[in-house]
């Protein structure tokens, strides 16, 4: 579904991604770990062409994202969901209008009753049915995150890129959201790349972990082996014990 080959991206002198390759199969959930500022968000943005890489190739569903014509790119983007790290809710629109926005434009065959039904359904999935008429600035940070998630999944994309879907949520909601992501994969065969710092979330969702450090992928494999690794960085990153 997603095939990244030799991706390199820098901002000025700041080399962020250095010759990265990865391959995520259809129906797979891949979790991406890495320290703050290593370029996880940049990686996701390159995949949907919000950022242009300096070198390398990205195939989504067999199509080369960075050489598609605008029209074809938009067709492809309709099949991709993107959850922004900062939610990116449209702040001049109510929650309902936020959720309607992609539906009206990308699912033209839907009637307004079907849309309302769909909106109810996703709000229920993120457990926020009561905020439908609120404006984004009336919501808490965690609520915004969940509405952002609802807006991402509402068009039923085949590929979803989550940028920290559970950051800032309480442990119970983290579990619920992670289970929701897992269900999407199981029921609809959605492919996902999930950036997270949350081991609990990863354990629920993931078949596979990818660790980024200093612009390189330093680990790509099963989650269970991660915590047993001998690598100094992985040890520091994934062991919870605090010792001095």
């Amino acid at each position, binding site marked *: 579904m997603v095939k990244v080959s030799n991706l390199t991206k820098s901002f*000025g*002198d700041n080399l962020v991604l250095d010759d990265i390759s990865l391959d995520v199969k259809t129906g797979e959930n891949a979790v991406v770990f890495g320290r703050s500022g290593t370029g996880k968000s940049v990686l996701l*943005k390159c995949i*949907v062409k*919000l950022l242009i890489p300096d070198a390398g190739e990205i195939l989504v569903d067999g199509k080369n994202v960075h050489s598609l014509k605008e029209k074809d790119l*938009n*067709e492809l*983007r*309709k099949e*991709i969901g*993107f959850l*922004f790290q*900062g939610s*990116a*809710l*449209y*702040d*001049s629109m109510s929650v309902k209008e936020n959720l309607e*926005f*992609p539906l009206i*434009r*990308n699912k033209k065959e839907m009637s307004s009753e079907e849309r309302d039904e769909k909106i109810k359904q996703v709000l229920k999935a993120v457990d926020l049915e009561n905020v439908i008429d609120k404006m984004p600035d009336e919501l808490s940070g965690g609520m915004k995150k969940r509405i952002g998630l609802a807006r991402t999944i509402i*068009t039923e994309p085949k590929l979803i890129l989550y940028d920290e879907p559970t950051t800032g949520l309480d442990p119970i909601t983290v579990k619920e959201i992670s289970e929701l992501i897992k269900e999407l994969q199981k029921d609809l065969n959605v492919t996902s790349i999930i950036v997270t710092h949350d081991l609990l979330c990863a354990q629920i969702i993931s078949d596979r972990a990818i660790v980024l450090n200093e612009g390189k992928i330093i680990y790509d494999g099963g989650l269970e082996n991660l915590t047993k690794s001998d690598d100094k960085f992985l040890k520091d990153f994934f062991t919870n014990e605090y010792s001095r």
Partner: protein
Amino acid sequence: MKNNTKEKKPIPFSPTVTSFFEIVAGLTIFSLGFFKEVFSPPYEFAEIKKHIDELGIKTLPIVTVTGFIIGLVLAMQSQPVMSRFGAESFLPSMVALSVVRELGPVLTALIFAGRVSSGIGAELSSMRVTEQIDAMEVSAVHPYRYLVVTRILACTLILPILTLYVNFLAIIGGFIAISLSQGITFHQYIDAVFRSLQFSDLIPGLAKTFVFGFIVGAVGAYKGYNATNGTVGVGRASTSAVVMASLLILITDMVLVKITVIIWSQ
């Protein structure tokens, strides 16, 4: 490590001059996008109507006051001078001509710029820095068409209407000032106004307001759409939009006045 600054050739102009031309070039390319996108569907009629309503409500109070005062002050100011030359009877024509040809369009546009291009700049730049524009783009909605084209169009359509309204109020304001000191009836005044106004005064005065409206929308949107640097960028986008829009309005006005003089004198 590569040092970029050393490789550059020396710049013949001072940095402010080059960056001015850079901005003008950027703005031109940005605005040309409007003509490319405005005719291609999907048309966002609901958005355009929403912006027109908002712009109207936002600017109506201030242009009302301005319009009235322009006429009042213009008549009061000119009266002593005109009477010194024994030309008091020309006062109504003078007020009408100055308002319709120059003061109405330019002052309305400048006020509109202050109120609107800053608003558009702030709105779009905060959408930019909170990634709302990116979010639109990945949901396969053309953000330029949805956010920029609709706003520029709304500005271009509403400024001429506002200007007509201001012209009307200014002429009324002029009447009040003149009638207080000269004892002229409303009928006589309006008669004098319409006798002096010709098509060649009305049309250029109104035509340029479309251009001014376009400038206000385009500059605000350009500054906002290309904002960077978080909240600092939002502030910068909105203030620099006002400065730039006002400047461009004045420069364009100068050029257009010259052009109309050439056309009409032939």
